[in-house]
């Protein structure tokens, strides 16, 4: 027996050494540190209302002025921060911090803040916070996701020049009123989205002495306890979950749900945990229940399953330098059996459109009739274009979105059926982007973000963008893009963008394959609240859940 004891000692010794040797840099306190150190009160108040939302990618940052447009990060950030406006799922604006936004000439916008707006520590929110945030975020040394190049006094990339600290386009009138002046008149929609919705604020009373160069690594952004939103930060257990508690000091109705957990889990477990009730809802677009699991989630009796309106489509992007003849691109459009993809792969939970703008978007051109499935016509077009059948097309496919990968496989089969040779290459996203930038692709597929402001859907078609995915040159398209960006009358803008969509439909530099109606899976315990394509949390203070 002694020998076995000795053996056990040796093994224990190995483990001990392993733990000790794991580099001097790491502190040995970590196992204990993983225990939530948050409020102890939670354990004895079972009546607390809690919702757990599942997402599949971990939030990378909680920095409200540099969200990196990362959808996973935006989930906690939008619960922690209110902006002047929020947006509904039909792209309408609703006021939050703003009492009113007025403009007479579409160049000067006058904003009145809600008089009772205050940070979650009770400090009033004033125009001093607005000025502080803008001056800091627009400092050339600071990273920000704000896109405010339209404001007077900022340079082309939307920053202050070196050594200037004042924004000429920002005019503070009093503690609750300020004006923003644009370089030229702009559509209020642009102002509302870029300034009203996308600009979050920093608490001047907390960060006033910070060095701009060191801002991004400041402790505040790891634990942003003072924010202005319906929820306040409790903890972020890296790789596990973000815990938020309701803001008792909220300037609107105090939320009914006491705590919200945003739980990070792999896609494969999302459905399982909805079934076990460990999470109460999925999230869009970072907690997608694969549509291939539709029948399965439908069969669970503890959840409601609904479909959101059709969202941003997965699109083919053609390298138009390698495929300059539009007949070839049209042939590809005719060759795709999209009804099969929608009905078989996506169980009917998708729409067929051709352009990048989803059908629920106000600027979607309803008059365009999508290309139908017509392989004969496709072959005929290839003949007319004098297609060289010995040529091989390189099709780059990003891995990660299973449904999109499967759809791409069907696309490849369809293209082979009309006689095209396809070389399929699958890569992780950074690799794919690198190859696309070098122009190694003939075709690639990915999904763009949702934009309220329609001009953002078209920047990729501009010819002054030599490294763009499609490398597209078309004088009329350039002209219409410019007109669309400068037009400030909504009706006229609609006309311009309708025409632009028609031209692009005929030219096919990009082609949507399917526009998915994402599944919204919500526990039956939840009385109010569900994931939406955009603006999920715009009324989160009204959300409610049955307590067990």
């Amino acid at each position, binding site marked *: 027996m002694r020998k076995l004891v000795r053996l056990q000692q040796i093994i224990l010794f190995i483990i001990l050494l392993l733990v000790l040797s794991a580099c001097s840099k790491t502190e040995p306190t970590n196992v204990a540190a993983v225990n939530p150190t948050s409020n102890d009160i939670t354990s004895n108040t079972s009546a607390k209302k809690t919702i757990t939302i599942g997402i599949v990618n971990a939030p990378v940052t909680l920095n409200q002025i540099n969200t990196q447009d990362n959808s996973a990060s935006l989930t906690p950030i939008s619960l922690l921060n209110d902006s002047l406006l929020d947006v509904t799922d039909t792209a309408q604006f609703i006021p939050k911090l703003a009492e009113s936004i007025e403009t007479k000439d579409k160049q000067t916008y006058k904003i009145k803040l809600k008089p009772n707006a205050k940070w979650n520590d009770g400090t009033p929110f004033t125009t001093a916070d607005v000025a502080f945030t803008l001056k800091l975020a627009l400092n050339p040394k600071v990273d920000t996701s704000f896109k405010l190049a339209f404001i007077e006094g900022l340079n082309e*990339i939307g920053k202050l020049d070196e050594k200037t600290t004042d924004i000429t386009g920002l005019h503070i009138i009093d503690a609750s009123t300020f004006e923003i002046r644009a370089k030229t008149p702009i559509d209020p929609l642009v102002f509302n989205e870029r300034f009203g919705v996308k600009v979050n604020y920093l608490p001047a009373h907390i960060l006033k002495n910070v060095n701009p160069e060191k801002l991004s690594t400041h402790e505040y952004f790891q634990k942003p306890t003072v924010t202005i939103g319906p929820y306040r930060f409790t903890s972020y257990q890296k790789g*596990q979950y973000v815990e938020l508690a309701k803001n008792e000091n909220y300037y609107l109705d105090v939320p009914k749900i006491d705590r919200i957990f945003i739980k990070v889990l792999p896609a494969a477990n999302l459905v399982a945990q909805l079934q076990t009730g460990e999470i109460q809802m999925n999230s869009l677009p970072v907690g997608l229940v694969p549509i291939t699991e539709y029948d399965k989630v439908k069969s669970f009796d503890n959840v409601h399953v609904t479909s959101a309106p059709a969202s941003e489509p997965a699109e083919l992007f053609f390298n138009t330098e390698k495929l300059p003849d539009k007949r070839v691109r049209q042939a590809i459009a005719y060759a795709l059996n999209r009804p099969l993809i929608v009905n078989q792969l996506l169980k009917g939970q998708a729409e067929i459109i051709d352009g990048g703008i989803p059908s629920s978007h106000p600027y979607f051109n309803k008059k365009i009739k999508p290309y139908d499935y017509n392989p004969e016509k496709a072959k005929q077009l290839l003949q007319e274009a004098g297609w060289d059948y010995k040529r091989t097309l390189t099709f780059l496919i990003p891995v990660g979105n299973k449904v999109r990968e499967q759809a791409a496989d069907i696309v490849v089969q369809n293209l082979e059926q009309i006689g095209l040779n396809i070389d399929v290459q699958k890569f992780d996203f950074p690799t794919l982007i690198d190859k696309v930038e070098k122009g190694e692709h003939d075709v690639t597929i990915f999904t763009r973000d949702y934009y309220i402001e329609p001009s953002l859907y078209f920047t990729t078609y501009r010819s002054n963008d030599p490294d763009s995915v499609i490398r597209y040159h078309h004088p009329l398209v350039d002209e219409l893009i410019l007109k669309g960006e400068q037009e400030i009358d909504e009706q006229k803008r609609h006309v311009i963008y309708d025409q632009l969509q028609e031209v692009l439909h005929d030219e096919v530099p990009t082609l949507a394959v399917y526009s998915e109606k994402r599944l919204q899976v919500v526990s039956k315990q939840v009385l109010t609240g569900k994931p939406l394509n955009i603006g999920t949390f715009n009324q989160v203070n009204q959300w409610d859940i049955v307590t067990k």
Partner: protein
Amino acid sequence: MMRRYIFRRLLISIPVFFGITIFSFLIMNMAPGNPVDMLINPNIPKEMLEIRKEMLGLNDPLYVQYVKWLSGLLKGELGYSYSSFASVSQMIGERIGPTLLLASTSLVLGVLLAIPIGVISAIKQNATLDYVLTGLAFLGTSIPPFFLGLGFIYIVGIQLGWLPTGGMTTLGGTGGIGDILVHLILPALVLGIAIAGKKVRYVRASMLEVLQQDYLRTARAKGISELVVLHKHALRNALIPIITIVGTEIPLLLGGSIIIEQIFQWPGIGQLTMEALLSRDYPTLMGLNIVAACIVLSTNLVMDILYAIVDPRMKYS
């Protein structure tokens, strides 16, 4: 003698360590894509991306970037993540604990399963029990851990509802060792089974070899009970080669736990590695490489020393 041996091995580790950092740095930078181009959003002006590259020092020649990073390291700074802007040493610090906990538990579990099974199967060589046990061991190595993991989640977590399907603590719970242990069972079992499956065959083979030695026959002839013969004379000798094999398992365990950590949402460095890799977060990746290098180098060293302790025949050269 021993001390000099350890000292020399430590000295050798130093250039190896720097070699590893140079190679990791080169390979990482050779991988296509970079952290800034990830922001392919066509609405970000090109100039903005250039400014960001400049700020991150990505436009410097590679050797300048390496020297900058190395001088940081010598000052004890691993830098800041390109995506979360958190300090790398802090990020790794938060994650290393859970990984070591999972890895060490699985290793102990694996060894504790493998030794008795291997020994019994050697003693009962070619009996039905032997076939059953080696069959099970074969199954343990053949089933990919990710599959076994998903199977466990489905059966134990969902159908039976006995154990949580993932994570390390209950959401918003008060935590505590009991809570962590409950979450630890499934991932540790999956990794443990994979380790045990591989080790059983080694233990069995090693035990069989020893069992045929003459000194065992002598021992038995002296009238020592079979149990003592097996424990005192056979097992100890049979386990010597096993120790080194267990040692080689440790670096593999760190690699293997990347997948298991994903499946069970275990908040360890495996998960962090995947995130950093997919966003080409160079400082975090380098930090993780250093940790991995330290672990591999130190386990190799410890294994060699242990080997010297249990087998006095070894020459220190």
